[in-house]
C-alpha cells in the first residue's frame, strides 16, 4: 500500500502538517519555520507550486475564499491527504526503526 506514494519532500511534509487545521499561506511558512527552529524556510514560489500540486492531487482543499473580501485564502487537509501523510509517516518510522539498529549494534 505504501508503494502507492512517493516519499514526500520536506516542503510537502511540513505543508501537509500545517494544514491539519485551516491555515493561510503565510501561516504555513511561519509554522514550518517554528517547527524546525528556522531550518525549513519555505520561499513563496516553493509554497505556491506545492499548494497547487497538492490541490490538484486532492490532498488539500480550499477552506475559505470569500470572493471580493480581503480575507486570505485558507487551506485544509482532505481525507486523501491524511492517508498520504500517514503512509509517509509509516515509511519514516520504518526508516528510523531500521536506522536505530546501527546504534544498537555498535
Amino acid at each position: 500500500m505504501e508503494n502507492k506514494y512517493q516519499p514526500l519532500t520536506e516542503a510537502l511534509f511540513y505543508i501537509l502538517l500545517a494544514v491539519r487545521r485551516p491555515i493561510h499561506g503565510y501561516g504555513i511558512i511561519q509554522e514550518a519555520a517554528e517547527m524546525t527552529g528556522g531550518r525549513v524556510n519555505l520561499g513563496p514560489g516553493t509554497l505556491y507550486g506545492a499548494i497547487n500540486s497538492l490541490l490538484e492531487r486532492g490532498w488539500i482543499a480550499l477552506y475559505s475564499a470569500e470572493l471580493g473580501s480581503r480575507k486570505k485564502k485558507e487551506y485544509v487537509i482532505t481525507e486523501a491527504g491524511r492517508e498520504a501523510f500517514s503512509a509517509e509517516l509509516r515509511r519514516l518510522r520504518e526508516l528510523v526503526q531500521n536506522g536505530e539498529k546501527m546504534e544498537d549494534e555498535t
Partner: protein
Amino acid sequence: MIRWKFTFDKDEEQDWLNDWCQQGWAMTGFFLGVVTFVPCRPGEYIYQIDLLPGKGIFAKNYEDYVIFMNEMDVEILQRWGRWVYLRKRAEDGPFEVYTDTASKVEMYRRIRGMFLWAFCLVFLCSFSAWNLLFHYPGDMFSRGLVGIYIVILTVMLRAIWQCSWKIKELERQDR
C-alpha cells in the same frame, strides 16, 4: 536612471539588479532590455525573477499568483510574458522565491521548456531566410538575415544548455 541589459540568464540579471540596489538604485521597470531605476537606500530591496507556469508566452492563473504573492508581501514590479520581476523589503528578512531543490529544478525545467519553445518558433521563422539564401547565395541581405537567425538560435541553445547544466548541478548536490 536608465540602463540597458540584455541577457537570457535570469540568475545573472537578478544578481545585476541586486548589485544596483546595493549601490542605491532600485529597479522599477523593464521594457525590451531597457531597465529603469530610481534612487533607494542601499540594499533596501531584494530582487528575484520568476517564470510563471504556462504555455508559450501565456501564463496560467496569473491572478492567483498575484494574490498569493501580495499575501506574502511580495511586490510584482513588472510582468513580461511569463516573466515576472519581484521584490521584497530587505528589512523583512531573506527573500528567495524557491527554497528547495525540487522547486528550483521545476523552475529551471519551465525556463528550459520556454526557451525550447522559442527556439522552435525562431527556427521555423528562419526557413524563409534559408530559402532566400538558397536562391540568392551572393545577396548580402539574405546572408545578413541568416546570420542574425544563427546568432539568435545559438544564444537560445546556450540558454537551454545553461538550464540543463543548472538542473544537473542541483540534482547532483541533492544526492
